[in-house]
């Protein structure tokens, strides 16, 4: 085989490897993961490559600093979630070491650069967007804004497996936002 053909084969396989590894990981979590609901905000920005989405921002972004937190940004941490009486989950504890459990989620923690003495750290959740059809996105955004003004927060529904999370839906009043804004069938 000519070198160019060999390089092409490797490149072509790599082009499959990246999306397929993503498919495999996330399908596994969706199929076998534990469902968890988290209160969040969801405005409507735009991604130039992937289209319009609701930016899903869990309310809990600052949590007490775990013991021994190193002075750097982007530290992986493991959060254990606990479900409240309202059916929504919140961070119960944060660990720098991997912990096991069905409701453990891997987050990334960082210091507040302008306030390194703070007793809390920022956490980044492993999901930040929920893609919507371009035709529905404006209606969804308007609906979320209206509900927010009325004091009602959207809820992110995720699936958890082995610390990995996949965002499966965004709910308003327990109903999928896609269902709410979908035009009625003719």
């Amino acid at each position, binding site marked *: 085989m*000519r070198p*160019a*053909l060999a*390089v*092409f084969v*490797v*490149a*072509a396989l*790599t*082009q*499959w490897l*990246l*999306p*397929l590894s*993503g*498919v495999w990981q*996330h399908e596994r979590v969706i199929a076998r993961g534990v469902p968890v609901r988290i209160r969040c905000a969801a405005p409507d920005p735009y*991604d*130039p*490559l*992937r*289209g319009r*989405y609701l930016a*899903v921002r869990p309310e809990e972004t600052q949590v007490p600093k775990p013991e021994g937190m190193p002075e*750097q*940004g*982007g530290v992986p941490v493991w959060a254990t979630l606990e479900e409240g009486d309202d059916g929504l989950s919140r961070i119960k504890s944060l660990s720098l070491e991997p912990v096991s459990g069905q409701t453990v989620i891997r987050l*990334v*923690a*960082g*210091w*507040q*650069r*302008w306030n*390194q003495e703070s007793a809390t*750290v*920022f956490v*980044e*959740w*492993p*999901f*930040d*967007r*929920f*893609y*919507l*059809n*371009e035709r*529905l996105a404006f209606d969804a955004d308007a609906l979320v804004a209206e509900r927010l003004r009325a004091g009602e927060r959207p809820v992110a529904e995720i699936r958890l497996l082995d610390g990995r999370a*996949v*965002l*499966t839906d965004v709910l308003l009043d327990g109903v999928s936002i*896609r269902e709410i804004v*979908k035009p009625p069938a003719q």
Partner: protein
Amino acid sequence: MSLPHHLWLAEQLPAWEREGIVTADGARMLRERYAAEPQGGLAQMIVGAVGALLIGTGLVAVLAYNWDDFPRWVRLLLALGPLAASQAVSWWVLRQDEAAKPWQREAVALVQTLAAGAAMALVSQIYNLPGNWTDLVFWWCLVSVPLAWVLRSQAVAIVYLIGIAVWTVAQAGERASWSSPAEVADLRLWFPLLLAGILPLWPGPELRDRPASGSRLVLAAATLIGLIAVAVYASVCPREPIQALFWLAMLSTAAVLLFPLDRHGIAEPLTRKPQVLLGGLSLFVMALIATYEDPARQLVKGVGFALPLGWCWLLLAVIAGFATLAFRQGRSAVLAVAGLALVPLLVAPFWSPGDDGWPVAITYSLVLLATAIVLIALEFLGRQGAARIGAALITLLVILRMADADLSLLVKGLAFIVIGVGFLGFNIFISRRRSIPLGGSPA
């Protein structure tokens, strides 16, 4: 001579050889000196690229319609199907080897690149994956660049270069952001590595492939932008504002300007050397900014912050190496312009943090004036200078200083008229002088 002239010459040479107008050796030397583009030219690339873009856009539009109504497996099939189809066509074209036309190679390479990007973006969308779109661009670049190598595609190379520049700037922005907790890639390592990804295409395994004019411009611009982004990355200090950036950006620009060229490259006109054009203009702009007090103070202050950085020493070493080569090749004009980046280093030992920036600003004005005179003098000495750029620089300097001066509007107006007339007259004089054939030495 421009590319159409090169192509015309390449067409004429066989007949001239047959008719005995030129010898075989003479024809070979002319072919080497005025090489036509080996990749099939800009038109071929545009034909291939436009066709590929139309197909890609059409596919996206078809898929986007009623997207939400499809179950997940159908969406995945639609995301990955075009990739499989484009790979099959690319394989077929690749098997044609030299029989494949340049536009075919360009088209299949670009379609496959778009299909790979679309597959990654759609999978990412289907599973609501987090992360900036620039992260997706990074992976897209990595999986696409081999197509530029094996299908010798300039279009994919351009997409790759733009992609790595965009990703590098995004990472530098993330690093400089005070609000972001995210860790970013070490650009001092990653950008040179990513830039080296283009080496299998240019200069290629036999070290003789050169990018076409448009690709050269993208290559020079991507390198310059990327290196300045790396300078941002290297300048960020914890709990400190960015201090070293201005000087590191000047050093990066000087490195691009001094990039070594072979004999043929040196002989080419300035319009075919975008690294010299972009690097030189950027350095002039930065040096002109440094003729003001506050930027001059910041610039020389930044030397103290830059010198402890390894990246600064690497840039200085690269500049020293490139400058030595340029000196041996007699490239006096680029050496004179690149020297502007070293002024802060030479001034820094005589400046203390409490001093104001005026001595540095005045030094920069004088050095810029000297550089302009060198560029003009080189041309009059029969070397390849840049008399018009030198004259423009002097004109700009005088205008800037006149604008600062506490003079009446009438005096300033009259001065501007005199400067304008002088500049136009000089240009006419240079045009007439150049119309007389002269022997020149490379610079």
